[in-house]
């Protein structure tokens, strides 16, 4: 069952690479949040109940509801256009993300390690690298943030793989989530809307040598 959820998550990455509208991205983020909720419940069977409830609440409330909702609010408030504006055609993106997934599968099959569930490793790494790819291949600042959240989801999966032995690390990952999202979204993106009206990354290219 865990494998099905994780593979579904890997499939959302492919969908993300060809999505044309920002709202599609947000729906995918919500879906990923719920998938992570399921994976958490099925994986972390050995940790104490209170901690499990806290982690699961974080996945639903934070990853699936609060962050996508807030991004939606920012998009509306700042009147950001709905296109994702990639630098590359969607078809190329699809191929690149597929290659990322294949590469991580090859990498993981070259590791001889009994302690690690390979599915976790593959999905986590491919999510991480897809997030990085989204950041470099999209024009808008808001898509950079979405890419970063995808990276965070990937890191969260990786932390679940060691979660039963070291629940402290999962909690640390949640702290990263909250820290970074508050920093990037809360404090900061509101300000960008105040200072510049069209949050396009091209406006932030003047600091150089």
């Amino acid at each position, binding site marked *: 069952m865990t494998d099905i959820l994780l593979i579904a998550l890997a499939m959302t990455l492919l969908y993300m690479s060809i999505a044309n509208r920002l709202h599609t991205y947000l729906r995918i983020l919500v879906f990923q949040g719920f998938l992570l909720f399921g994976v958490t419940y099925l994986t972390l069977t050995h940790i104490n109940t209170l901690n499990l409830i806290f982690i699961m609440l974080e996945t639903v409330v934070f990853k699936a509801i609060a962050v996508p909702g807030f991004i939606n609010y920012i998009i509306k408030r700042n009147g950001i256009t709905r296109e994702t504006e990639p630098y590359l055609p969607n078809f190329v993106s699809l191929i690149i993300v597929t290659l990322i997934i294949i590469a991580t599968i090859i990498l993981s099959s070259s*590791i001889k*390690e009994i*302690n*690690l569930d390979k599915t976790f490793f593959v999905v986590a790494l491919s999510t*991480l690298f897809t997030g990085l790819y989204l950041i470099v291949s999209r024009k808008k*600042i808001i898509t*950079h943030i979405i890419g*970063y959240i995808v*990276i*965070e989801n990937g*890191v969260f999966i*990786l*932390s679940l*793989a*060691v979660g039963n*032995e*070291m629940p*402290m*690390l999962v909690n*640390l*990952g949640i*702290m*990263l989530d909250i*820290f*970074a999202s508050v*920093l*990037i979204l809360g*404090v*900061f993106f509101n*300000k*960008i809307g105040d*200072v*510049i009206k069209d949050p396009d990354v091209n*406006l*932030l*290219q*003047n*600091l150089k*040598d």
Partner: protein
Amino acid sequence: MVGIFLTGTLVISLGLFFNRNTFVNHSLLILYLVLLWVLGIYECNHLNVTELEFFTPDSLGILMLMAICVVSIAAFYHGYRYIATGDETPKSRGIFFAAMVMLISACSMSYLSNHIAVTWIFVEITTLSASALIYHHRNIRALEGTWKYVFLCTISITFVYVGILFLSLALKQTGVGDMSFESLYRNCDKLNPFWLKLAFLFIFTGFTAKLGIVPMYTAGIDAKDKAPAPAGALLASVLMNLGFVAIYRVYAIIAHTPLHQWADTIIIIAALLSVFVATVYMTRIKNIKRMFAYSGVEHMGLVMLGLAAGGIGVYAAILHVILHTFIKPTLFFQYNQIYSVYQSKSIYDVGNYFKYNKAGAMLMLLAFISVTAMPPSGLFVSEFLIFQSLFQSSHIIILFIVLILLTLILWGFGSNTFKLLFTPPVSIDETKIPKISPWESLPQYILLAISVYLAYNPPAVLVTLIENAVKLVQ
């Protein structure tokens, strides 16, 4: 004491944030400095005594803590001058000093932490407080600098987190659940080499954002350029030390395993590229503040070379970091006086500084000699030892390349500095130049003097502390 310090920091920074009264503001700052010094002296007398489970003042931590104690006095003095002469409201002043207090405290705590996760948490807090400092001017350029800094640092901190996860996988087969540095050193020979390699790569890459070397150095450059100079001085010295301490402690794990050679190669590649990048920019740069920032990239590259070369190089690396902590802030502090004379940070608009501010110009000349490691600079001693260690570890070609690059940097830095000091400026309205009191440069002279004193006549306690810190990796 750590508990008292953390509570005190929280109370003082909240007080600074909400207070609008000038007198209360200054008293809170003095109170904080007293608290910081009490912490420093207390930890010196309680070497290797663990507090609150996660904080152990070992030799390396003590060295960095004492350095931050000294530098923060000067930073607060110049911060106070900066706010007093600038166009500031009580609110922006409050945010500025509260963020500075948070930054200094977070750095000191992560020097002392004995657990990789605790270090990680405090590094995240430094990002938060540094971003408040960088955004101080609230214009679009500052916004750009902050945005880039925050985004890159967040990605780096995620990298470090992934590295910690891999480290836990490496630890899994030993059956130990404790991830404190102490436990990692004890079990280092049982760690799984594959995961340890990955962990080191990710953690190293992540912390280079704070240390300021290739690959993540870019964030720091914009940050130091856009932050007010007293804050930039902190970012260029104590925050870089934080990156050094973090990488040093992780390197100490891998230094006792067969992967030692491999890690050295990675570090040497990153360090050499850093010196190269610094050279490329410093020979053509026209922005004074960014030039100082790139000089930091160069010095941290040299430090990492010393660390990777081993032998006397490790000792030299730590000495270099400490001396750099005293020298680099003087340049940033002096920058404020330069700016108040010329109202520009471009090298094209400045010149004949000796005519307008004698004490400042003299300091600029001395600081230039210090930072480029010409004798009698303190950095000369440590750089010489680093080169010696490179020679002994038979990295002759690397040594040769670095020496050529350093000569180019000397040329770039020198031509800009001499333009500032001696060449008459193209156009300047001399009636608008404010009178600058020579006493304002005094803290900078003292910092430079400390660096020379520490290098040529090191107190026995300093040598012992550095030698104990070196034992971590050798």
